[in-house]
């Protein structure tokens, strides 16, 4: 249970990093990439997949 909670925290942390990178990025190709990579992290945090 504790390990599961830590994994969710880790997932949230990486999702925040991804959003930060999206905001800072200046290339539209990278922005699309960040959004696509972010999606499975959000789906797991929302407990949908």
């Amino acid at each position, binding site marked *: 249970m504790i390990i*599961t909670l830590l994994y969710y925290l880790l997932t949230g942390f990486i999702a925040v990093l991804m959003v930060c990178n*999206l905001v800072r990025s200046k290339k539209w190709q990278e922005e*699309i990439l960040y*959004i696509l990579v972010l999606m499975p992290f959000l*789906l797991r945090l929302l407990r949908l*997949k």
Partner: protein
Amino acid sequence: MSANIPMICRKTLISLSGLILLIFAGLSFYKSRHLKEPVVLGPAVSRVKTLSDYFEGIRGSINDVNIYVCEGPQPGGTILLLGGTHPEEPAARLAAWIFVENAKIKQGRLIVILSANRSATTVTRLGGGYPADYTIPTSWGGQTFRMGDRWSNPLDQWPDPEVYIHYPSRQELAYVDIRNLNRTWPGRANGTLTEKTCYALTQLIRQEKVDIAIDLHEAELQYPVISTIVAHEKGQDLAAMASMMITGTEDFDIGMENSPYALRGLSHREIGDHTDAISLLLETPEPFLDATRGRTDRALLLEGKDKFVMKAGQHGLLFEKMDENGWPIDVRVGRHCSTVLHIADLWSEEHPDLSIKLTQIPRYADVIHNGTGFYLHNPKHAESGRLYFE
């Protein structure tokens, strides 16, 4: 600041596109996970218990599943039928459904579980391109079932370890199989969800004094354990007799294999070792599971036709025949129904005091002739209190 406006607009547009994708994907996953499958209780179902009645540690979890207890007027033996150990093998669940909705019992008891690993029914294989569900046509429209996967949903059990060490043998197995209900027998009271589920099922077998536990499965054609009954040594005679009887009297062949001593965690090994029950596992062919399959869609799941798997067969890579007729779902469900009936009949002949006499269950030829959907009942016509959901 004004130079940044186009960039802000672009980021907003890309983020909104992502959000739309997320909403559609999320809704699809949510609907699939929460799809309700109706079960109309047949005439023999006297009680519906839950798995937590046998082990408190599973109460309230997704795997606190329904246990359908079918009883006859005379006491006798008890058969446990496990469907949904691997929900991506739909003939197993559908055959179990037919037993719950149709069986009449003259003597003994039949205990049926439709979703032994309900968690695994709520997810499909990651990256597998599986359909989310499938529909069996019926005279009243059709009944839709969740597709499911081989392993418990990571939403219910996560993360996986680097190596899965089976309890109590301490054998090292593939990491992902810690979520495989057919690798975690006999289970552990303080283990993972999947281990707890097996522990609860083991308690059920002990407390209900089950004589024969039958675990229903399907297998890819490139896997050597196919079209067979895998039997614990306690059930070798019964399985061998069933194999001969079926081959002699039905329109299909089925083999018999011994449960290996060295491979731990499987139902046919651990139920036999840790309880008084005879443990048997039945396999039918399912081309949908083959690695060399083509498009992984509902048609392949239900019709079992695939030119790539057929090609593999032409190159001698399969352990079962594969032609243009494929392996339709009715054939696979019918095989399971007939095999269970033969096992019950043979057991009853040998053990008159522990007989299990089942009627109203279709045999192989009946299922092929009428279709699986013929034996699924319209939930709208269910009597009060006789409708359950999986």
